[in-house]
């Protein structure tokens, strides 16, 4: 899939999985947006409209999961949050294996404006015991990781994005990704850039710019924020000594938060966080917004230089 959005990967994965009778799709009037509509078109008897009622959808998923079915419930990332307490008390707490997908994550969502741009979803779901939290960077990896959820023993939240992004993985490469393990895209020893979602392409561009200046970066696609790959984080921070995180999400509690927690516990090194700086978004084209909120390759380059400077003090 070239030039696709990660939500397309989610829709494709549901179709890939459809041969398993346990798969049930739940929608909240945004199936055309999340791409669960692809499953509905082929398997209407196993796709259920819950209307614009997210709280009910979360507990219907829980009830299905309690009987051994494998529910996939999706809506916009921001609207999954309306059912957060339902996810907490109704799904994660009793240990039920239901899968939630929040599409249209981040500022990158664009012209819909701040009400549709979730910048806190990864942070809040990461706090729940029994929850796996993923934010893959392209359609192929979203497809592969969503398929892998069927053999994964816990509830999950996966964030996808609305707009097309660069293809990072071939389908063969994506098939090798494992939930909970870092995917190291480039290895360098001067600085480590850990990114998720749309910021992975920016991180790769930043690494290229830095290489032109003689600075060699490790770039990691952190497609799984929880469980967090502490072992690999320790290895990389030891070899690079300076770390940058890059996410289209608040710098509080998401990837930056996860990395800060891990570094503090295992191998403290200077950390610079590129992300949304405790503010809300607004309408605009994705590129305009990414520029405005400091979510570009150039911002990552600057952050990398700052982190290296702090290390060398």
């Amino acid at each position, binding site marked *: 899939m070239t030039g696709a959005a990660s939500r397309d990967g989610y829709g494709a994965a549901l179709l890939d999985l459809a041969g398993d009778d346990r798969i049930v799709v739940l929608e909240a009037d945004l199936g055309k947006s999340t791409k669960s509509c692809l499953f509905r078109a082929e398997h209407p008897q196993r796709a259920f409209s819950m209307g614009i009622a997210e709280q009910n959808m979360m507990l219907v998923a829980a009830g299905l999961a*309690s009987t051994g079915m494998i529910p996939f419930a999706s809506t916009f990332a921001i609207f999954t949050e309306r059912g957060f307490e*339902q996810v907490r008390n109704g799904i994660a707490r009793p240990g039920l294996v239901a899968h939630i997908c929040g599409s249209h994550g981040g500022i990158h969502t664009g012209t819909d404006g701040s009400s549709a741009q979730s910048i806190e979803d990864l942070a809040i779901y990461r706090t729940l015991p029994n929850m796996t939290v993923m934010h893959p960077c392209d359609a192929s990896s979203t497809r592969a990781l969503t398929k892998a959820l069927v053999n994964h023993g816990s509830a999950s939240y996966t964030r996808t994005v609305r707009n097309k992004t660069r293809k990072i993985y071939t389908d063969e490469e994506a098939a090798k990704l494992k939930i909970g393990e870092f995917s190291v895209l480039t290895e360098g020893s001067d600085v480590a850039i850990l990114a998720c979602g749309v910021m992975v392409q920016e991180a790769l561009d930043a690494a290229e710019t830095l290489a032109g200046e003689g600075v060699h970066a490790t770039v990691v696609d952190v497609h799984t924020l929880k469980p967090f790959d502490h072992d690999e984080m320790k290895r990389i921070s030891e070899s690079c000594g300076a770390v940058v995180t890059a996410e289209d999400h608040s710098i509080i509690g998401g990837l930056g938060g996860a990395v800060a927690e891990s570094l503090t516990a295992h191998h403290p090194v200077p950390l610079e966080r590129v992300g949304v700086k405790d503010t809300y978004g607004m309408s605009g084209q994705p590129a305009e917004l990414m520029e405005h909120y400091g979510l570009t390759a150039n911002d990552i380059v600057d952050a990398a230089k700052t982190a290296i400077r702090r290390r060398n003090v």
Partner: protein
Amino acid sequence: MSDNTPEFTDKSVDELVDIARGCRREIVKMVKRANAGHPGGSLSVIDLIVGLYGRTLRVSPTEPKHPGRDRLILSKGHASPAMYAALHAFGFLDETDLHSYRMFNGICQGHVDSKWTPGVDFSGGSLGMGLSFGLGVAISGRLTGRDHHSWVILGDGECQEGEIWEAAMAASHHRLENVTVIVDVNGIQNDDFVDQQMVMGDLSAKWAAFGWKVRDINGHDMTEIAEAIEWSKTTVGPCVILARTTKGKGVSFMENNPSFHGKAPDDEEFKLAMEELA
């Protein structure tokens, strides 16, 4: 795991009345031992729970997780003493298990919890979620061909939660026949009488407007309870039974008294309660 769905325990109305009286004693004892809990709503709902176990629920203490079992989903999960007392009466729990109510690491948690207690299918404690859960189970039954039934017990105060009406719409939209709601209409919620907190108006008309078949009963009359259960099983649903009850039923000073929504009796009160429930 046997292939056959468990059979239900067919009890006479007189037997059920006796069982419910014994459960009332256990409810008050549990709350007294823990010095905390929710006696009022447990005493209002116990006849309904005993009626379900004795007249319709296909469940088995030896196979509490049987995939074909009916589900009793106590959405008003704070009435856990009623559930535990009934699970004891129907062979799922030992008497000693009841002593663990609200105790450290006890299998009878403060609110009903499927991870801790055999025979509990739904983890409650946060109001408004049980009907949605029951719909998920019901949808699964439709897809797998298993004929299990979801029996969901709500409180009347709980019907203030918006999710209840989201679920009521969905059940009707998807024509789910294998789910029945029983509302324990005891007229009191945590802080005060329901009418003081949020007037619920005509509950019967509300459910009917959401596409449900409605039956009003006296929720302490075991004959009416048994008849309503039969009615819901033979009526094209979804069906809701509005059970008019008395909060604290059976203990004079708790009856219709908002202060016993979530409070244990003192020693004198406990003694009196045991005399009244003898």
